[in-house]
């Protein structure tokens, strides 16, 4: 129920298009979105494949609520093997594509192989075409989207890559509706390796639920009592920029390549400074929150900048000029690169230059050179060719490994683990590498009322936060809705037509976390890779609440061992046979 029951499979090697039944057992156990995507990936990918080869697959999944009136259910999830890290990768995006895919009659879209020439996949209900896209190759995401909108109608959902994806840049993203991105782990490079410039989808079918009056009644109540309420206030007013002041006060705002956690220019890049630019609100389908801050300054428009961009592209590069950050953000969106990784790379290059280790010709706060970076990196021009390979590559080649801020090869998001020890554990254990979407324990800890400078209870806190996100992102509900497990249970029970308890959801969450880990174990990942950059263990933060603090390595190791034990994994961070049996995997 609420699934279309169909998977669309497109092979770009052969041009074959097939429609097959959705694996109902997997949908039952992994729901949709992240869980279902990673399950398909795990089952269909061979061990050790090159992520940029024809053997990798780009898997797009919707969820059990996509296309219904359930609030905040409009997102789409991608899964593939990551070209940035070699781990499993999931990455999600807002906009209307997911609902259009469901209306076209598909829960899942699997793209295999590699086209010979640039291609555009066009889906209109049962009609699926692979069209030539040579004329779009080389164009930025904005122009590509405008042109496809003109040709195929602006109501369609469009996903596309920019020059960065085409050039297989390991931080390339996929963009949609100009200003939204599935950004992390190089998902855009996977699409580029398939020579797939864009996917356009429109649908006219229905999504059915077993009890429509019941669902409408439930959703009406939730919107008033659980969505447009105090618990979500921050998101439907300011959106994520509100986190700048919080992070700065907690001393965890990455500043000058994580050399500090307090930025003297924070008040110039916070929510108030964005409010002064008079943003307009944008929302995904079925969303009452409308988190998007649409801002246009001259030729540059963005939705945001979001907190992660303000932190990594702003304070982490020593930049407090909000208009420069917006311009940098817009350039990243157009060439198609991830702002989190881009901000880290530029910050790292700045520190390398200032320390005299390698002169990249850019220093903290040098806005003129900084603004050239997105295009140089995305198009692999000049020094951008090397920078586009990411922080790990640069550190291995030139040094600075102790302040290369990445985990498993993925550059860190905007919360310094020295001021939030649980977030350190969340980064270290995240299956796709340094990532804040695997779990967000800082919300209860440094941003809540739990002591950030102890390891006591942190393994459990982190696991609970990871499981909460696994449920949310596999039901495909937006991160920004502070929805309870009980409400998620109520919603999925209503849509499935049978009671699904919180306990059942929690078990599914654990299963979903473990399938991601199994993928990585099969690829040869071991416990030693569940770690953090040396700077976190050795360099004390300078300012604010965490001044003088590191996350001591022995404490981190103890926290990690407790984490493995609680997860029922062995000392190498691999799930034990007993655990897998318990989870019916």
């Amino acid at each position, binding site marked *: 129920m609420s699934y279309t029951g169909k998977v669309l499979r497109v092979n770009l090697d052969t041009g074959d298009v097939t429609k097959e039944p959705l694996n109902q057992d997997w949908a039952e156990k992994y729901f949709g979105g992240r869980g279902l995507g990673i399950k398909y990936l795990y089952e269909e990918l061979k061990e050790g494949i090159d992520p940029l080869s024809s053997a990798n697959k780009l898997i797009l999944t919707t969820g059990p609520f996509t296309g219904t009136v359930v609030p905040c259910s409009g997102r789409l999830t991608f899964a593939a093997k990551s070209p940035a890290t070699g781990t499993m990768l999931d990455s999600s995006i807002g906009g209307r594509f997911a609902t259009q895919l469901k209306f076209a009659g598909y829960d899942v879209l699997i793209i295999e192989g590699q086209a010979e020439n640039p291609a555009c996949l066009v889906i209109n209900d049962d009609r699926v075409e692979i069209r030539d896209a040579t004329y779009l190759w080389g164009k930025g995401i904005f122009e590509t989207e405008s042109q496809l909108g003109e040709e195929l109608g602006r109501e369609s959902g469009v996903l596309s890559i920019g020059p960065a994806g085409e050039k297989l840049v390991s931080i390339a993203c996929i963009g949609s509706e100009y200003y939204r991105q599935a950004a992390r782990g190089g998902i855009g490079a996977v699409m580029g390796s398939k020579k797939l410039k864009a996917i356009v989808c429109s649908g006219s079918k229905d999504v059915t639920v077993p009890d429509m009056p019941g669902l409408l009644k439930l959703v009406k109540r939730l919107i008033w009592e659980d969505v447009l309420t105090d618990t979500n206030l921050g998101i439907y007013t300011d959106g994520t920029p509100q986190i700048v002041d919080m992070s700065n006060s907690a001393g965890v705002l990455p500043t000058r390549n994580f050399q500090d956690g307090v930025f003297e220019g924070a008040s110039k890049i916070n929510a108030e400074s964005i409010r002064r630019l008079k943003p307009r609100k944008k929302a995904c389908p079925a969303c009452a929150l409308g988190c998007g801050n649409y801002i246009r300054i001259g030729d540059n428009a963005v939705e945001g900048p979001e907190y992660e961009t303000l932190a990594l592209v702003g304070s982490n590069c020593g930049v407090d000029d909000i208009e420069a950050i917006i311009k940098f953000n817009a350039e990243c969106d157009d060439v198609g690169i991830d702002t989190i990784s881009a901000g880290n790379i530029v910050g790292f290059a700045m520190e390398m230059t200032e320390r005299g280790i390698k002169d990249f010709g850019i220093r903290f706060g040098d806005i003129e050179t900084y603004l050239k970076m997105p295009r140089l990196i995305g198009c692999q021009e000049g020094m951008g060719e090397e920078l586009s390979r990411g922080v790990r590559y640069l550190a291995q080649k030139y040094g600075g490994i102790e302040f290369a801020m990445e985990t498993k090869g993925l550059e860190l998001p905007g919360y310094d683990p020295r001021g939030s020890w649980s977030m350190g554990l969340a980064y270290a254990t995240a299956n796709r590498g340094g990532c804040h979407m695997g779990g967000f324990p800082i919300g209860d800890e440094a941003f809540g009322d739990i002591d950030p400078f102890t390891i006591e209870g942190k393994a459990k806190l982190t696991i609970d936060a990871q499981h909460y996100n696994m449920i949310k992102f596999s039901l495909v509900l937006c991160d920004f809705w*502070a929805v309870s497990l009980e409400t998620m249970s109520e919603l999925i029970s209503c849509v499935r037509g049978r009671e699904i308890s919180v306990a059942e959801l929690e078990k599914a969450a654990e299963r979903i976390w473990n399938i991601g880990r199994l993928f990585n174990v099969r690829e040869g990942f071991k416990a030693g890779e569940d770690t953090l950059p040396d700077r976190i263990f050795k360099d004390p933060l300078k300012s604010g609440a965490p001044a003088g603090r590191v996350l001591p390595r022995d404490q981190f190791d103890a926290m990690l061992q407790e984490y493995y034990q609680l997860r029922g994994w062995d000392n190498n961070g691999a799930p034990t046979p007993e655990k897998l049996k318990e989870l019916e995997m």
Partner: protein
Amino acid sequence: MVVRIRMHGALARHFAGEGADSGNGMAITFPQKKVSVAQIFNRLRIPVEVVGFVAINGVRAAKDTWVTDEDEIAIFPLVTGG
């Protein structure tokens, strides 16, 4: 004693009235020499469940932290992700 209180994010509009400028905040006078963060919540009728955390003079504080004359209190809402 007088403390200056800045409500961040949507808390500003919600508790200080539409259009309130959280940049300047509001000055609140207490008869005591010091009060706890929890007492400030009580005085302003801020439901604890909507508060993420509190900073005093820019540094994260707990609910039982004491606030004294001329302190600046920043109150942040809950967040679910960045």
